[in-house]
């Protein structure tokens, strides 16, 4: 369970870090964070930074990047939390033999995620989107020695990868409908896309991609499984960054796509269902990390819900809650990692009394949890008040939405207590696998800083408002006037009443969570599970693939040949059916007695070869066909071809004769008439004849032949045009042909000689 602890035994002193491999990524992430911080004043002033280099100019695709309020908020969260997580990991996985790999994956993921939120081109956006999918697959599957780790990583890859295909289709359609792939240009067109006939397909495809990535019900099942990753990964990917990629994209296209009924209802319904369902599931878990994973789902549902709306309240609530959630959720995940690291377990019923052993972690956890539960004066309180205000501002169904948010918040309150209060402050619940100890400073820095920021912004909301919330709302609505002021005390109003109701309800849930959990466990054990359904789906997929393979790949060569020849016959017949049967020049039908004799020779030889059971007769008949062919060449002005044909024919017969003497007699193998094969053979022969007749009815293009006839002597000084073509005009082809024959000869010799030299040792 405690994957970090695996690196060092209980009695040994843990190693200090991972050397340069551990430190360099931290510095890299810190430098990125500093760079984004430097852009903050410009963006806060309402400006947008654009940067482009050409990539595929013919399609108008460029490596275009844009820094505005929305993307900068995300970029700061990604690089800032990334720095803290890398710092944390360096201690958490200290001395891990594969730490270099881990740091590489995590840093690559961070860069991909930054590319995603900064991309100003739909195609670039997609490329980074897929890069996050792949790097997160590697991170979830980091514990690849376990069956579970591999399965869960694959599940995340498949679900988000399948969504990504829909997403790509949606992006391409969007680019097509808007006439440009540049996101800033699309946004400049305003809501013009609403009237495009492709609006609905675009919307549904984009949302399918976003919902799978952001784990909305019913695509939610992969996210809790992704907790197979080491805890710092969960803190980074599954709270602050990757799962928010879907949310980011919905926010990015919000100015263009939002405002229709489809958008409003799809996002609202999916958001509410996800938020409530996930909160209930969160309460059910006993593993602290799993609990947190489900509350992440709840947060994603809430963010989706807000993006469904257009009001300034909802947008401000979105921007604020986005930041609030990232801060407290990353902090709590890291705390859970420290608890796991220090106490050796994450089971809620075992843990207790850690407050004394891990005081700093406990305080950081408490502060983050207060923010999560929505206590004043923390930022979470402001976030929650705004959530209610935003929910009540939903014009059509305020009761449904506000009710859903209330229930979800109350459950969140209870979970905050279970995760961050009980393990530290209640008496110990049982024997811990390890004597708990306080985490080293790099593992404290993350939780403490993130929790402190939540408190700082709560006490001083203007700081956050001016720097990040206003620019983000500007990105979403195009106007700063829409922003609602963040304040701790907004007077006695409906949101405040709802807040108090949340506390009361949440406290009830917290006190009753053990019986509740038991009844929930009973209910969910009986209910169908999508996760188990997934296994069934994968098994069925593999079985059907196996069944199809068994049908297609029988392992019998004759079956493959039947398929090949039937394809030829049907394909040519279909082509002929489209063109109509050829009408032939009567001159082609004229025959002399020589023609008849030639044809008879070839036909007789072919028939005998096909049906004889005598080796000698077969060889002789083969020779007859060859000589008949050579005679055709002679009569119709091709003496060179005829000579070659005769020489080759002699060689063929000699070779066949030599080899055949070493093979079993032909009449030893029964050769009954095979009517099915004969029918197929006649069909192939018929279509070949028809195809050739069709060719003959088409006019002959003699341009190349005329060119060779005219230039053969003046340019190549040869009077035999065929020879000139072979050794001059197409000399390189002839050279290749010689090479082929030489290779064939060498291989034949090798095969024959090996048979002699290898002897019996090789044969069996």
């Amino acid at each position, binding site marked *: 369970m405690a994957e970090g602890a695996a690196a060092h035994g209980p009695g040994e002193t843990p190693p200090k870090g991972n050397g340069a491999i551990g430190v360099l990524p931290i510095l890299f992430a810190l430098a990125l964070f500093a760079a984004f911080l430097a852009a903050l004043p410009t963006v806060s002033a309402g400006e947008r930074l654009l940067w482009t280099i050409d990539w595929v100019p013919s399609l108008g695709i460029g490596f275009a990047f844009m820094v505005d309020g929305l993307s900068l908020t995300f970029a700061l969260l990604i690089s800032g939390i990334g720095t803290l997580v890398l710092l944390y990991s360096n201690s958490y996985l200290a001395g891990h033999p594969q730490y270099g790999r881990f740091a590489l994956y995590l840093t690559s993921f961070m860069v991909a995620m930054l590319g995603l939120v900064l991309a100003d081109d739909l195609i670039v956006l997609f490329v980074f989107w897929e890069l996050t999918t792949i790097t997160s697959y590697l991170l979830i599957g980091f514990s690849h020695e376990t069956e579970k780790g591999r399965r869960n990583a694959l599940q995340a890859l498949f679900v988000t990868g399948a969504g990504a295909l829909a997403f790509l289709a949606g992006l391409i359609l969007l680019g097509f409908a808007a006439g440009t792939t540049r996101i800033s240009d699309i946004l400049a067109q305003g809501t013009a896309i609403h009237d495009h006939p492709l609006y609905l397909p675009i919307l549904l495809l984009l949302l399918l991609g976003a919902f799978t990535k952001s784990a909305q019900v019913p695509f939610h099942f992969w996210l809790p499984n992704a907790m197979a990753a080491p805890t710092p990964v969960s803190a980074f990917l599954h709270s602050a960054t990757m799962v928010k990629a879907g949310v980011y994209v919905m926010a990015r296209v919000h100015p263009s796509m939002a405002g229709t009924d489809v958008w409003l209802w799809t996002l609202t319904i999916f958001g509410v269902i996800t938020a409530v369902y996930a909160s209930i599931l969160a309460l059910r878990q006993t593993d602290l990390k799993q609990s947190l994973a489900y509350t992440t789902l709840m947060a994603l549902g809430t963010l989706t819900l807000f993006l469904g709306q257009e009001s300034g309240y909802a947008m401000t609530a979105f921007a604020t809650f986005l930041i609030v959630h990232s801060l407290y959720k990353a902090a709590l995940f890291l705390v859970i990692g420290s608890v796991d690291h220090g106490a050796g377990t994450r089971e809620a019923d075992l843990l207790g009394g850690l407050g004394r052993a891990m005081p700093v972690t406990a305080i950081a956890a408490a502060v983050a949890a207060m923010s999560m539960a929505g206590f004043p004066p923390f930022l979470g309180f402001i976030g929650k008040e705004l959530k209610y205000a935003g929910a009540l501002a939903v014009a059509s169904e305020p009761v449904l939405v506000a009710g859903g948010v209330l229930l979800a918040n109350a459950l969140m309150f209870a979970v905050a207590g279970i995760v961050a209060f009980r393990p530290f402050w209640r008496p110990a619940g049982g024997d811990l696998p390890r004597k708990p100890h306080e985490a080293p400073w790099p593992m404290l820095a993350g939780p403490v800083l993130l929790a402190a920021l939540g408190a700082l912004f709560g006490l001083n909301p203007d700081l956050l408002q001016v720097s990040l919330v206003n620019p983000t709302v500007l990105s979403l609505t195009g106007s700063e006037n829409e922003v609602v002021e963040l304040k701790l005390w907004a007077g006695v109003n409906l949101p405040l009443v709802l807040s108090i109701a949340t506390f009361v309800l949440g406290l009830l849930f917290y006190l009753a969570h053990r019986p509740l959990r038991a009844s929930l466990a009973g209910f969910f054990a009986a209910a169908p599970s999508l996760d188990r359904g997934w296994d069934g789906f994968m098994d069925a997929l593999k079985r059907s693939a196996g069944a199809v393979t068994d049908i297609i790949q029988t392992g019998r*060569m004759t079956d493959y040949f039947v398929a090949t020849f039937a394809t030829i016959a049907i394909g040519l017949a279909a082509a002929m059916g489209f063109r109509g049967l050829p009408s032939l020049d009567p001159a082609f039908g004229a*025959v002399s007695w020589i023609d008849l004799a030639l044809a008879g020779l070839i036909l007789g030889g*072919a028939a005998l070869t096909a049906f004889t059971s005598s080796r000698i007769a077969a060889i002789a008949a083969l020779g007859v066909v*060859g000589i008949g*062919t050579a005679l055709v060449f002679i009569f119709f*002005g091709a003496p060179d071809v005829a000579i070659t044909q005769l020489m080759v024919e002699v060689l063929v017969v000699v070779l066949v004769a030599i080899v055949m003497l070493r093979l079993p007699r032909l009449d030893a193998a029964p050769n009954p008439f095979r009517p099915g094969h004969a029918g197929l053979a006649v069909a192939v022969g018929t279509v070949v004849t028809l195809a050739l007749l069709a060719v003959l009815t088409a006019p002959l293009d003699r341009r190349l032949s005329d060119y060779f006839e005219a230039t053969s*002597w003046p340019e190549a000084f040869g009077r035999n045009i065929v020879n000139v073509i072979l050794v001059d005009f197409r000399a390189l082809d002839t050279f290749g042909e010689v090479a082929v024959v030489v290779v064939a000869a060498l291989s034949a010799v090798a095969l024959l000689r090996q048979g002699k030299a290898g002897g019996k040792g090789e044969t069996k």
Partner: protein
Amino acid sequence: MEALLALTIGVLVAAAVYLMLSGHMFRFILGLVLISNAANLTIFTAGRLTEGVPALIAVGAEAPDGLVANPLPQALVLTAIVIGFGLFAFAITLVKRAWTELGTVEADEMRLAEPRKEKP
């Protein structure tokens, strides 16, 4: 003659296909030789038949005098004959080798790469 040759080629192909479907490696080789002949004749016929005038340029002339046989398909067929022979030589040694190694010339008995499924 073109029509008659087209018919002859059809029969050649049919005989070749029948032989190749037999599953007996030696008959397969016979079919391979027949189908190469059929292919060569097809190319030759598609370039039209011209009786008795090879594509030669008389001494002193710059170009052939009047209509001669189409040289282009002839060049192609020449190449094809030689390549076909190379293929044939390789295939027949392969068959011989298969016989020494596997003790069978029946294609459907050669199941090293795709073994039969065990019946459960």
